[in-house]
């Protein structure tokens, strides 16, 4: 059996006395798309942020591509990683944020080439060529010189996706990528993500877009109050939710 891309074992996260994640265990296989749904405050985003160690776990283990995230395990004890090593792990994990978080002082092209130039130390010409290809892939070849403030929300989010892809990630995390968008702009971002899934990218998507989940996801996970309530085939879960909490949630959003 090959190692899954993401393996979570009893992941816990506490903020002070507040327990946000109460033991999450799940697996995402290579090339798979997993959608995480659930009410706000259920811990979906926190879990996503744990995967690239933006948040430190309070308990459990998280493996990406077979490698423990954020720690070294030696003789049964966990040792915290050097920041440099944590940064190296994050390079291979792309992340797309709800509020885009593009660098406002850099053009679309500048945003995309930043990490390849400074983190991977690629040659400028190669990085720019690749970045232009990526902008073309998300349909923004003509916006390379525009600053984020001059782009619509949907365009900004597509630049953000191109920026994450520029690092050649093996895993992409999407944290409610369409929640901050006007309704008519949601489609263009989902189209890019759909294409990405078709190209075989492993993706974990926190979303409220049930249509996207039904159509694209290989698995659907419903979280509530820091636990996985229900998981399975998206068409199955959405059509015939077994758990009462899932039913209650879906009746509100569908």
């Amino acid at each position, binding site marked *: 059996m090959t190692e899954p891309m993401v393996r979570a074992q009893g992941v816990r996260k506490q903020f002070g006395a507040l327990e946000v994640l109460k033991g999450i265990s799940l697996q995402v296989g290579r090339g798979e798309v997993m959608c995480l749904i659930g009410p706000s405050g259920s811990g979906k985003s926190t879990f996503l942020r744990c995967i690239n160690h933006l948040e430190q776990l309070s308990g459990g283990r998280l493996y990406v591509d077979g490698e423990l995230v954020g720690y070294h395990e030696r003789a049964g004890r966990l040792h915290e990683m050097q920041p440099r090593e944590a940064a190296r792990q994050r390079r291979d994990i*792309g992340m797309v944020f709800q509020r885009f978080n593009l660098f406002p002082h850099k053009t679309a092209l500048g945003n995309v080439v930043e990490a390849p130039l400074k*983190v991977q130390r690629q040659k400028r010409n190669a990085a720019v060529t690749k970045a232009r290809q990526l902008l073309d892939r998300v349909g923004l070849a003509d916006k390379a010189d525009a600053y*984020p403030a001059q782009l619509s929300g949907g365009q900004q989010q597509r630049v953000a996706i191109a920026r994450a892809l520029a690092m050649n990630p093996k895993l992409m995390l999407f944290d409610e990528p369409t929640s901050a968008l006007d309704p008519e702009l949601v489609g263009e971002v989902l189209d890019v993500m759909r294409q990405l899934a078709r190209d075989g990218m492993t993706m974990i998507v926190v979303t409220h877009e049930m249509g996207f989940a039904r159509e694209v996801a290989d698995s659907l996970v419903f979280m509530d109050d820091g636990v996985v309530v229900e998981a399975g085939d998206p068409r199955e879960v959405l059509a015939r939710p077994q758990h009462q909490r899932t039913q209650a949630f879906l009746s509100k959003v569908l």
Partner: protein
Amino acid sequence: MRGKQPGGPAVVTTAGPDAEAPEAINAVPLRRPGRWIAAVVVVGLLGLFIYGAATNSAYDWSAVGKYLFDVRVEQAAMITLLLTAYAMTAGIVLGVVLAVMRLSPNPVLRSVSWLFLWFFRGTPVYVQLVFWGLMSTIYKHLDLGIPFVVQFAHIRTSTFFSYFWLAVIGLALNESAYMAEIVRAGISSVDEGQTEAATALGMSWWQTMTRIVLPQAMRVIIPPTGNELISMLKTTSLVTAVPYSFELYSRTRDLSIETFNPIPMLIVASAWYLLFTSILMIGQYYLERYFARGASRRMSARQLQALAKAQGVAGAAPFAEENR
């Protein structure tokens, strides 16, 4: 009470491309006599003041003309510039270090930075400068090395530090306390999402700071730093407390003791200070413009032109106006 307004349902006319264009407004402008009266009064007062200054013999304009470009004054002006440049550069560098210390997770660094700020902002710069002047009395010599073990260098403070450098140190340390607060405010003004996005891309703390956070913080940092620089230029006149007396104010004051005519020399000094601050203000304008890139939705002339071309000149003209 809310209810249906009389007048029936809203009527909306949709305008097709060949709909008749509404007539442009050509109204009689409102008269504003108050504005004219206020302007005349102010200009009149200003004229009276200029006339008084030109005819008042106490200003002694011929002496001003004679000393304005005196070699000694010019040299003093250069020294004022040097003091400002050295003290401000050191103040900014140290200020950034102090700001980063204050934002550090390390409680010791945070406290030390706070203590430094507390002292150097809490005491007058004049008093600090007097202290620096007494440096060689307080510390007769400085030893570099490992305490109680080895000694690499033995420095006599009175010969090693000239009054010029003591003045620079005094001004710089005072300045750094203010710069630290300005830089800290700038860093705090940058959205947390920026740090997160950079971290998620695998950038190190240093890269995140220098490539992402500080360039954005600059927009907040530069205007008050411009003020600080201008203020520093003028604060150099206090180094007479050290006592150092070759900068602009001290030098013109010494000259006026020779000529028994202080007022024209004050004007000479003021003229030079004004010249320098004016140059600095122009520089600040361009710096602010550089660091504002990407901050506005307003498009550059080049981008507007491209859009106009796409839209056809007639339709694009009012759009371009709006964007100015």
